[in-house]
Each structure stands twice: as C-alpha cells, then as structure tokens.
C-alpha cells in the first residue's frame, strides 16, 4: 500500500517532474509521509497519471539526490529522512494562528491575491533580516526582477 497519490496541475507551468518532487516534499514536511514509507512504483504513477516513465524516474532521482528518499533495488523507493523538525501539535497550532490571521486580513478587505502578495513580501523581508543582508535588499531585488 502506498501513502501518496500524485495529482498534476497542467495550468501551473511547473514542469511535471517538479510537481511530483514538490508533492513529496510537502507530504514529508506536513508529516503525511514518514521515514520508511514507500512511494508508489514508477509503473503505478505512470498508469494513473498517463505520463512518461522517464519523468517519474527523474523526479525520484531528484528526491534521492536531495537525500529525502532512498531507492532499494527490486523493492522500490522509500522516504529516508524527514524535512520537518517541528512536531505535529506545534504545526496544527501554527495552522490555527494562520487561519485566524487570514480571517483578520479578510475582514480588513484583502482579497486572495492581496494576501498572497503580502505574505510573499513579509517572507522576503524575514529571509533578508535573518541572513543579515537587509541593507543591500533594494539593489539586489531590482536586479533580480530584471532577470526573473
């Protein structure tokens, strides 16, 4: 029995193999997948999503390179480590406070796009502060926008 069902979003613009990688990472981060859990076989994924087996193999290679999974010949691919040092009770606490914050933002009149933009902005600021490069942020982000 496998513990993850993949699904694809054809409109996201994200390459198929990356969508698979992200879904495993999310499942691990949120505790749905734990060390020792088995990922579906390449053939199972291929038969349910009708995608190229090379794409699934590429996603599984990527996960292995990241150290998240380990392939055991003849047996399959297994979750090796967890990305998530935060325990489940704390996670659900964080989820609750985030939901409360979302309700406040909604009351204040922010729509979904506005919320996403605000969050992305705050995350960027938080990241910059933590890495201590806050001073150079303006110049760096202008440059990045030209390239991105």
């Amino acid at each position, binding site marked *: 029995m496998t513990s993850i069902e993949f699904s694809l979003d054809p409109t996201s613009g994200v390459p198929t193999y990356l969508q698979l990688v992200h879904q495993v990472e999310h499942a691990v981060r949120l505790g749905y997948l734990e060390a020792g859990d088995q990922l579906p076989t390449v053939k199972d994924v*291929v038969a349910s*999503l009708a*995608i*190229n*087996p090379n794409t699934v193999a590429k996603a599984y290679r990527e996960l292995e390179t990241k150290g998240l999974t380990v392939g055991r010949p003849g047996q399959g691919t297994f979750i090796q480590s967890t990305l998530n040092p935060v325990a489940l009770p704390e996670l659900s606490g964080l989820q609750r406070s985030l939901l409360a914050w979302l309700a406040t933002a909604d009351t204040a009149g922010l729509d979904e796009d506005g919320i996403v933009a605000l969050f992305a902005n705050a995350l960027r600021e938080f990241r910059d502060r933590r890495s201590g490069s806050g001073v150079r942020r303006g110049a760096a982000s202008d440059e990045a926008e030209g390239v991105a």
Partner: protein
Amino acid sequence: MNVIEATRLGKRYGSTWALRECSLAIPDGHVAALVGPNGAGKTTLLNLAVGLTTSTAGTVTVLGGAPAGSPVARDGIAFVAQDAPLHKNLSVTDMLHLTRNLNQRFDQGYATARLGELGIPLDRKTGKLSGGQQAQLALTLALSRRPRLLVLDEPMASLDPLARHDFMATVMAAMADDDVSVVLSSHVLAELERVADYLVILSRGSVQVAGEVDDLLASHRVLSGPDAEADRYAECLDVVHALHSKAQTHFLIRTDGSINPVPPGWKARPITLEELVLAYLREPGAASLPGPMRVRFAEPTEVAQ
C-alpha cells in the same frame, strides 16, 4: 541506439514531394512526438519507417540499423495506424486469433489479461465497440506482439478526454514495464506535454526541430518588453517568433544560456512545449536542430514582419 534513423529521406507522389531531404535520428528509450501541420509528411515518414511504403530517395533504418521493412524490423516494430485499424465484422476473439496467426510472436496471456482489465467483451464484433475500446483493442493487439518500438499515427484524434487518458496510460505502462520505445504523431499538443520527452517538428516535408524536450525548453525563453525598443534588441537576439501588441512585444528566443539575453527593463520567462511548437509552426523558416544537421538549412529567420 536509434529507433528510427533517416538520411536525406524523400518520398514523391506523382510530382509532389511528401517528404524531402529528411534527416533525423530518434534515440531509444523515449516517447518521441512527431508534430507538424497537415501535409507536413508525418504519416509518410511513419509509413516509410514501418516499411509500409518505399522511399524515392535516401534511406531509413530502424532499431539500430535494420533496413525498414526487413524481417528484423517488422518483427521488432508494432504499428497502429490512424482510426484503430480493425476488421469491423470480426469478434474480439477472432481478431486476437487472426493477429496471433499473422505474427511470429504473440503474448496471448498479456492480451486476454489486458482486455479483461479494460472490460472489453470478447464475443462482441469490433465494429460494435466504442471508439475508446476500439483504440484500446488495436493498442493491446500491437503490444501483445511484444515490440521494441511502438509506432502510433494520430492515436488520440477521435478519442474523448477520458479515453485519451486511458489510452496513453496503457502506452506509458508498457514503456515502464517492457522498455518499449514510442514514436507517435499527434495534433493534440496539450497531451504531448505530459508524455513526450523527444520532439520532432516536421514542416513542408523536412525536419524543422528535433531534440530532447528538456533541452529544447531550456534553450528557449519568452522575452517581453516595450514595443519601442523591440527592433533594436531583435537584431542581437536569436528570435524564433515575435508577437507585437500596442505597447508590448513578446519574443520567443533561442539562447544557449551562456550570456544573459535579457535587455534591461525586459522580462524573461520559461516557455511551455505547446508555445514552442506553435511558434515554430508559425515560422516554417526557423529551425532548431542538433549540431551537424543545421548546415543544410537556411539561416533562421529574424523577426518576421
């Protein structure tokens, strides 16, 4: 190993060249998609490769060097022509019987197991099956021959979305299980994005683009910027297709990634396979080919305006 290799291949019907100076090499282990407008020569190329017709000029070999149409080639290739070729008055059982007797190799166990999974009634006449079931039956018969190369000509044209999905799932599972290489022609670009990892674009009887999908996507970008600056930058960029609107210009460019091609104030984003195919189909003069073959073609056109 190349599953199909063509060298200056040509096919003339009367005074019309359906295929001309066509050179390409499709590597094994891939799902190679053959796309192009109607009349580009897709079916002609596939018919030549599987040995259903002979060439007027040039050569085509399959499965690592076997001449197309030779016994080795015929044994290793299964071909499903357009519109599920079945004898409509035969029952499914009779169709299995016929295919088994006409081929050296036939995996009866696989065929019956697969038809069982699909819920296709064995006693029904094939003409009375649904379009999706007919396509699945033709595919099952082809795969029961245990081919090394599966060639599909417009396999999904007449299928509804669910039948298409199930059809491709069967093809992909065969590839995962038995290392079958696949070459298919298709008009359905959205489906190709999920399955194809090698792309060949045919245009006017010649190869316009050929390569691994990942490489092609990595070497093309869409640049967007103010229309006023467009002409100036177009000269120093390798533009495949340009789209001008009132205020903005979008360039689909080719880049080898070694230099940063984004002019200041412009935005670059990755492209999808569908965008890439459409851009080349709109610009039949532009070409993107692996190394040595490029010299045979005219210089890529600049902005076509």
